[in-house]
């Protein structure tokens, strides 16, 4: 970026850096001049100590509204012997922050924590070396508190030792780190750093960013996406239809259609008013025939995991359960639609957006804008909770295309129907499971078949400009686009087990992406009902049945914790429906890619109307060492409420042309009046590695809700959400 562009950027960004001291601005200025990622093997990349004895930690993870940025600072503060008031982080920026990979798979603490901790330890060791020299005493005679290094009565601060100068030190990872028994800040219920500004109304979300000379843009698309492989072919655009709106103009690149205007409301009006038509299509099966098509389609089959011999063990077992289940597409539906501001110049670009991965977004944008990666700068601004791959990249590309075409900065915010209608949905799922137990109550065989498609790799904006559609390829180790070996039977010690993935082509369905705890709610909904049904057949209490078959101590820990919190009393589902309202209690286990989740649910079912009320949810999570139990409790509460919403209400609907659920009326979510009481339980493991905590109790909660429904009614729900017609149909079966 040229000096002029940088000055412009600083000026433009002025409104959003209020509250940062001067040295930070200068520091950011020097740090921001070169395209990143900065060298991860240098300590200076990870942190800086300022003259006022405070520290900045450069963290490569986005604050997604879950509090992870505070927890990462706790780790750094602990290792540096600083107080939480002495430490802060900066926004993600491809010119400033290291590349720690994307903020997904609950990675912030699990993957980011050890990096931050070892970097801080190495910096502390260097600071102690400097202090020893300055004070003329050996390192082992020094003690540190709040960034003040002492030897008896003599002292020197970190700020005095290195204030705002570079360490110029290689990050070797060799400095000893503190033992859990030495933690002072980690494990504490520290208040989140971002919440004071959020309640005051001074926090700058992405949606608040404004820059000088900026135009407002909106995309113009059919309300509701069509089949991914089909796109939306524009047949006619009548540019004269927005002639009466001052300064409004149409932006078109192939089938990518948008409008820009000086005033935001004029852009909104122009997008609404522009007369455009698209080629008709009927490539989708429609919501009603979705599962039929998925189940009968030719799929790419692969065995995810196999041990023992399921086909011989299943028929020999004393008790066999076969269960089929279906789960819909669900939307991220962030509360505030995604927004981005792009300033694309002839040979450079600055794009501000809410991406979960600034470096991945930079790479794609550079290719689309035909710029070099080093000339594109991407900055992260928090939007509303995204819970996965919502439209943040799509809107960033839209803003970038429009800015490149008009030669001015452009701010694009999606309208509600754009976000709901063009999301990368959590994919639909069809699951079939067979599970068998011997007469003593031991699960001896288990087989799971899952039908679903993977994630789409091309954003709608890029696709509409002519980019070819692709599948999203992720590292095989992630394994989150298919049957999950932890949630599908992994909770139990089963000698004969087989998991099979039946992969469908995403191009024939809806665009898809990772939605919080991808597919796990669906897997647990199917799998854990089969396990529960086995317990029922054997007339064993479902909690006791799970205990007998549990895979390991960590699973047992969350199972016991959830049962204890709920004051579980042994029972066998009666299935008797006495009266109009029947109540039941269920239990379940599940997780995402790591950690362990257990849950208990209490539900009430009105057998006349089919209305289901989730009264109470208990969620126990073992995520190893929990850095901030208060934050994780809050995350568990959110997961439980969101799971209730997804089980009771959430379903993307579509006809053969396209998506029809495009707002909160057509895609309802849980509201205050139906909100269950929720009890979070953190199973703290002070000596274990920290693992993900942002999504790992949802599968268990989904299972517990489904099993509670059975306990209440004696009927199994084979599909969610639990709409009244579906409930009434299940009760009649």
């Amino acid at each position, binding site marked *: 970026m040229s000096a002029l562009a940088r000055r412009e950027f600083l000026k433009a960004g002025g409104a959003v850096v209020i509250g940062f001291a001067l040295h930070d601005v200068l520091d950011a200025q020097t740090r921001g001049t070169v395209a990143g990622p900065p060298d991860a093997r240098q300590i200076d990349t990870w942190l800086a100590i300022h003259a006022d004895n405070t520290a900045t930690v450069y963290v490569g993870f986005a604050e997604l509204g879950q509090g992870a940025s505070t927890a990462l600072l706790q780790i750094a503060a602990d290792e540096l012997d600083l107080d939480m008031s002495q430490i802060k982080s900066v926004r993600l920026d491809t010119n400033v922050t290291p590349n720690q990979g994307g903020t997904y798979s609950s990675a912030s603490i699990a993957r980011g924590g050890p990096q931050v901790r070892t970097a801080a330890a190495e910096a502390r060791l260097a600071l102690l070396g400097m202090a020893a020299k300055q004070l003329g005493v050996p390192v082992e005679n020094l003690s540190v508190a709040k960034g003040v290094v002492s030897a008896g009565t003599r002292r020197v601060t970190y700020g005095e030792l290195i204030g705002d100068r570079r360490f110029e030190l290689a990050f070797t990872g060799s400095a000893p780190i503190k033992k859990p028994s030495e933690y002072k800040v980690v494990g504490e219920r520290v208040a989140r750093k971002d919440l004071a500004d959020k309640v005051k109304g001074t926090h700058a979300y992405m949606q608040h960013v*404004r820059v000088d000379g900026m135009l407002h843009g909106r995309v113009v698309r059919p309300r509701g996406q069509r089949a991914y492989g089909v796109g939306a072919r524009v047949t006619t655009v009548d540019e004269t239809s927005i002639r009466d709106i001052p300064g409004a103009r149409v932006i078109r690149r192939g089938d990518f259609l948008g409008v820009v205007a000086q005033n935001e409301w004029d852009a909104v009006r122009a997008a609404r008013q522009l007369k455009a038509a698209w080629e008709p299509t009927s490539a989708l099966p429609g919501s009603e025939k979705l599962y039929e098509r998925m189940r009968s389609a030719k799929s790419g089959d692969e065995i995810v995991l196999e041990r023992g011999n399921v086909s011989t063990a299943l028929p020999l077992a004393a008790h066999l359960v076969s269960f089929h289940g279906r789960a819909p597409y669900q939307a991220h539906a962030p509360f505030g639609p995604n927004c981005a501001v792009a300033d694309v110049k002839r040979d450079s670009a600055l794009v501000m957006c809410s991406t979960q991965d600034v470096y991945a977004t930079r790479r794609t944008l550079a290719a689309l804008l035909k710029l070099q990666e080093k000339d594109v700068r991407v900055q992260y601004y928090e*939007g*509303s*909770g995204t819970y996965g791959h919502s439209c943040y990249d799509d809107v960033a590309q839209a803003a970038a295309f429009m800015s490149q075409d008009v030669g001015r900065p452009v701010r694009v*915010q999606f309208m509600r129907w754009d976000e709901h209608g063009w999301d990368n949905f959590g994919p639909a799922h069809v699951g079939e499971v067979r599970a068998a137990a011997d007469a003593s109550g031991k699960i001896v065989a288990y087989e799971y078949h899952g039908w679903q498609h993977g994630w789409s790799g091309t954003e709608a904006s890029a696709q509409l400009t002519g980019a070819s559609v692709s599948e999203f390829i992720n590292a095989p180790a992630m394994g989150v686009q298919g049957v999950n070996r932890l949630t599908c039977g992994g909770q139990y010690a089963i000698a004969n087990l087989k998991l099979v993935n039946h992969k469908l082509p995403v191009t024939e369905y809806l665009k898809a992406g990772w939605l919080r705890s991808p597919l796990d709610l669906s897997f647990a909904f199917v799998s854990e009902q089969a396990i529960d049904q086995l317990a029922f057949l054997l007339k064993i209490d479902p909690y006791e049945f799970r205990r007998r078959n549990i895979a390991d101590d960590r699973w047992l820990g969350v199972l016991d914790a959830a049962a204890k919190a709920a004051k579980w009393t042994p029972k066998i589902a009666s299935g008797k429906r006495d009266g109009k309202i029947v109540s039941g209690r269920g239990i379940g286990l599940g997780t995402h890619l790591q950690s362990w989740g257990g849950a208990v649910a209490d539900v009430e079912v009105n057998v006349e109307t089919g209305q289901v009320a989730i009264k109470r949810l208990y969620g126990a999570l073992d995520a190893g060492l929990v850095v901030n139990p208060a934050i994780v409790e809050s995350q568990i*509460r959110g997961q439980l409420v969101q799971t209730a919403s997804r089980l009771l209400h959430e379903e993307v609907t579509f006809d053969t042309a396209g998506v029809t659920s495009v707002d*909160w009326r057509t895609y309802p*979510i849980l509201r*205050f009046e139906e909100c269950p009481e929720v009890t979070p339980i953190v199973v703290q493991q002070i000596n274990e590695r920290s693992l993900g905590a942002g999504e790992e109790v949802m599968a268990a909660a989904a299972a517990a809700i489904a099993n509670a429904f059975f306990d209440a009614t004696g009927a199994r729900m084979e599909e969610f959400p639990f709409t009244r017609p579906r409930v009434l149909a299940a009760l009649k079966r």
Partner: protein
Amino acid sequence: MQLKVNEKTWTVSSAPDTPLLYVLANELELHGPRFGCGLAQCGSCSVLVDGVEKRSCVTAVSAVAGKSITTLEGLPVWYAVTRRLSMVPSLHPVQQAMLDEQAPQCGYCYNGMMVKAAELLSKTPRPDDTQIRTAMNGHLCRCGTYPSIMRAIRRASELMAAPTEARR
């Protein structure tokens, strides 16, 4: 056109049919009211108009000229005026309680949550659980923090009932 927002008078130039939200966000550069749906379905854009919660995304700016508009930023001064306090607190008790409870996750919906809760407590100082749920039912939270919001509203109710000095 003149608008009274947070006890100050502003002259604005937007067309009269412009929804109030766009005037507050772009001309007054306020961060409280924010776009959520543009359909009055979610409560993201809520403001108080003469003490009554309104969805600014569907309220034409001309319809509120001459009325007293309060945004999230103005809740403390609105509280001071309506309660005849000698000093404007730094936070409205609802804001303080949300912070004390560490209620928000992403916090985007909290503009509407706090505006609506402030309206509720001004009319019903000691709401029971059902009253809270009913009043708040038109406000959505995607992060699922409803239980924390309800706890915070009960706490705010207690803060408001406490002697004035204790609040400062």
